[in-house]
């Protein structure tokens, strides 16, 4: 239950942040939602099993499921890579990280808009 509550809180917070103005807040929202997804993946392996997954001593009936842990490990690095790229996009494109401007024209067109 506590995992479910935490997933809910993280998701709600991230949805709130997505709706905010400013790229950095959106990036923070994504950090939170990937936390939520990772917690969900952990709980998919049934959090009732608390033992170490890779141990020759413990009783197999106590060990945590290793597969979701591998899933989470993969998902963390992917989300990390994309978050880094998004942070870079937030600081490189315009003078600030405002997201309100709505471009509507193909890029090539804008490049020669002054003609």
């Amino acid at each position, binding site marked *: 239950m506590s995992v479910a509550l935490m997933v809910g809180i993280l998701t709600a917070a991230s949805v709130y942040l997505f709706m905010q103005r400013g790229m950095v807040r959106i990036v923070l929202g994504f950090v939170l939602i990937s936390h939520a997804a990772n917690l969900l993946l952990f709980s998919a392996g049934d959090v009732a099993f608390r033992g170490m997954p890779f141990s020759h001593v413990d009783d197999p009936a106590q060990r945590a499921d290793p597969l979701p842990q591998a899933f989470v490990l993969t998902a963390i690095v992917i989300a990390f890579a994309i978050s880094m790229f998004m942070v870079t996009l937030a600081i490189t494109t315009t003078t600030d990280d405002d997201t309100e401007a709505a*471009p509507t024209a193909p890029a090539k067109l804008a490049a020669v808009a002054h*003609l």
Partner: protein
Amino acid sequence: MNEMLSTLLPLLVVGPLFLGAFSAALRRSQRIRHGISLITLLAMLAASILLVVATADGTVLAHQVGLWEAGVAIPFVVDTLSALMLAFVAVLALASVLFAMATHEARARFYHPFVLILMAGVAGAVMTGDIFNLFVFIEVMLLPSYGLMAMMGAKLGADSARIFVTVNLLASTLLLAGVGLVYATAGTVNLAELQGAAAEDPAIAIAGAVVLTAISIKAAVVPVHGWLTRTYPMTSPAVTALFSGIHTKIAIYAIYRIYAMLFDGDQRFLWVGLTVAAVTMVVGSLGAVGENSTRSILVFHMISHVGYIMIGVGLFTTLGLTAAIFYLLHGMIVKASLFLSTGALEETYGTARLDRLGGMLKREPLVAVIFMVAALSLVGMPPFSGFVAKFSLIGATFEAEQWIIGGVAVIVSLISMVAMLKIWTSVFMGPEPEGLERRALTYQQAIHGKRYLRVEAQAEQPTLQVGPPTTGTAAVISGERHARVTPKLIVPAALLAVVTLGLGLGAEVLMQLAEQAAQGLMDPSDYVKAVIG
């Protein structure tokens, strides 16, 4: 033979991945990078044609990566549908890379590495038989795409990269959550082991629905299509053409595969697919009519195209799936041809706006012919492939007694024709707008200026002439009228136009393959047997 082929399946992923990394390490050897990229894509095309031949009789090739036990390992599976997807994606990537080489975009240091890693991701996503691994390969596909999209550098290009990244990351996270839910309810993420699971257990069906929703965002079906129409027109034409046949189409492939395996084609949920398909077709084509530049019209049209393909999974009959698979493959080629032929004009004249182009029929008759062929095929005129695709798809809806969806598909074809005529009348017919030449030359200078100034300065007698020194587009600042689409820019679109004509005249071959692919989806027992024995 088949044993050996299936052992070699991972090469389709490892090859482009390794060569992509290798070409990223090459610093100055422009030609070697071009060569590596073209050879890899040609090899992928050859390999996928071999796979099409090997699977044409319904054989399913499967390989357990790492040779672990079935169900433990990640399986790579190729049936007729995946082999066809691989072959068509390879054709499309080749055309788009040739175009990018003609526009000099491919000179950017990471262009070829990005394309090759993108192709590795595509091969993985198409072949994998495990939904978590599907998620990983979709990310492998997306990360180089972010790079390609942002490489445009211009402010507007980067803004659209933000939208592209955020929406895709959100969809990926949702996909990840869905995969977690499937694992929690069904206890495995292996598609073959999941066969029919969602049809039996509502909990698994809900988890599967989360997965399908996430993939539908990536496919840009209608409630969630806005991101596509606001990002694809904002990069370069070469990148738009490449993406048009990859991301959304791989997502549709995944929808087909997952609905056929996990849901076992469950009849109870088909109305959802049909409703989404109908709305997507209508909204996409209406949006296309409302746009005012060639590329944004075509991008909106991609959405209505997604709607047509969704009909197949909404009907889930052999005939419907056959027609929709044919439509999917034909659409990849035709759409890319349109993006490349209008892209050639855009790269030469510096604009895609309808009111700034005109009289191209006289000025660029060859581009006009190529555009005409692809546009007629898109609308569904004989003798091109679009006619066969639409005719059989609409026939399938009537056969399944889905009169409404069939009617919508017919009406939407008419709206599509209006959109194509809109491009035709304003870009190819009519008078040449004032200042077309001047704008083209200034554009050439703005885009290529710096580089060619440097080239000229290295010559024995440095001059102030600006522009590509070689062929057609030679834009000499003091000179007279020289803006012309170069042959190099036309070839890729022409090749794809020839393919659509070939598919129209020789539709029988592809139709039979599509039917084989559809039977593989209708009855996945061969797939399951190949994967888990």
